[in-house]
């Protein structure tokens, strides 16, 4: 694996009273102003979606701009905590190049999905808001426009060699093992990554990882597969701490609508 170069933007921060902290995370400008028992949080999109820079400035003179929310407390919160979190809907990843898994074969892919920012204050921690660092496009995933679910769309290199993973402070990597036990080749044009069932881990070099998942497609299944979620961080990530819990609990061996869902 390449030595990652990822600047972490998450953690605990102290913002002095009457001071503002500014986080520029790719295209997102996130500001927090401490006014004692009132905290103001604002955010706006300033840059292009491809921006990947991270800068944290505390204190900053920049005035608050964009959508602003005001939070009131009975006692002055001391510290701000920013936590990365996975998306709040499944992410439909489209490999840059359609890939094919022949019958009886399996392939290990590494797929990136966008992360969210969650802001909380005080002890015990109280969450104030969460928002996407780089809001992905909505998309529909299902066999027809009547059946299916609302998801997010993302593109991915879907590399099979972990040395070729390009890490980003705003994307989490999911190792996906695809097993095709059917007798026909499996064409993967889109892959449904069930991030709502996954945790977020901190890997070596401050990289972001989720549990490894396995999609096993059997005979007779066209677009469905049995989903298995491994426990703990994947071996490629090392033994880092868990940063956030799954949003939903999943069943063991869940039959999942995993592939394609092309529209007629």
């Amino acid at each position: 694996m390449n030595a990652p170069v990822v600047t972490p933007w998450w953690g605990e921060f102290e913002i002095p009273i009457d001071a503002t902290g500014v986080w520029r995370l790719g295209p997102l400008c996130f500001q927090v102003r401490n006014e004692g028992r009132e905290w103001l949080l604002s955010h706006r999109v300033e840059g292009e979606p491809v921006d990947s820079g991270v800068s944290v400035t505390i204190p900053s003179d920049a005035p608050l701009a964009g959508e602003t929310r005001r939070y009131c407390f009975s006692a002055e919160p001391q510290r701000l905590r920013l936590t990365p979190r996975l998306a709040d809907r499944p992410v439909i990843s489209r490999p840059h190049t359609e890939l094919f898994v022949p019958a009886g074969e399996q392939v290990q892919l590494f797929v990136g999905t966008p992360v969210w920012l969650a802001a909380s204050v005080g002890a015990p921690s109280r969450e104030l808001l969460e928002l996407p660092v780089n809001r992905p496009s909505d998309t529909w995933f299902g066999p027809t426009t009547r059946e299916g679910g609302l998801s997010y769309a993302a593109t991915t290199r879907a590399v099979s060699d972990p040395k070729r993973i390009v890490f980003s402070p705003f994307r989490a990597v999911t190792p996906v093992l695809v097993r095709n036990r059917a007798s026909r080749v499996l064409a993967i044009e889109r892959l449904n990554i069930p991030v709502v069932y996954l945790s977020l881990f901190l890997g070596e070099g401050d990289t972001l990882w989720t549990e490894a998942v396995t999609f096993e497609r059997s005979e007779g299944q066209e677009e469905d597969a049995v989903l298995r979620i491994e426990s703990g961080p994947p071996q490629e990530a090392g033994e880092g701490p868990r940063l956030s819990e799954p949003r939903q609990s999943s069943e063991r061996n869940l039959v999942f609508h995993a592939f394609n869902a092309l529209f007629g």
Partner: protein
Amino acid sequence: MESLPVANLLRAAALVIGGWIIARLVSASLVRALRRRTAAQSSMLLRRGSFWLIFGLALVMALRELGFDLGVLLGAAGILTVALGFASQTSASNLISGLFLIGERPFVVGDVIRVGTTTGEVLSIDLLSVKLRTFDNLFVRIPNETLIKSEITNLTRFPIRRVDLQIGVAYKEDIDRVREVLTAVAERNPLCLTEPKPLFIFLGFGESGINIQFSVWAERDNFLELKNRIQTEIKQAFERAGIEIPYPHRVVVSAG
């Protein structure tokens, strides 16, 4: 009528007076007992219904004491029933239509439906009619019989909806470039669903320009917001790209 003994007259009078008092007492007690469970209008109907039922019985008994033949009354009641039957045809039709609507479930309470030119949120599906609230906050009552016979469009049955945009561009424009610009606008807007893909249709050659339909999909709740935002973004993108949206053109040829 033969002259009646005084006793019969007195009994008849007692029946009428006693029946009136009992009817008043019973109807008032019923209403008091059920006040918390019934609306004001239902209480009034209950009071009147119970009063006239009991008082009516007392009147019939008094008429028997006075020597009247009840068969005539029954005959009159029969004729009245037939007349009521004819008069309530529409209500019966609405009632039966309501049962079919409930069974078929083309919509449920909370859905937004369009019937003819009326669009609104379904407030209730009742025995004889369906009540809607229009978006300008008006109350509309539609008889069930009308609904069974009409085309109903349920705007909220499915989770995603297509926004159809009618766009005209000048004849001089490169259609492939127009398509690229429109596709880029759709890709940049996060509310515009990536799948199903936006649809580009060359509708035809209009009077003053080329007519295009550009259809994009949105989550149902974002329909209006996407429709407003994307049209603004298309206009801005056309201005940046120098693509002309034509005004109506007329070529005037002078005679002579």
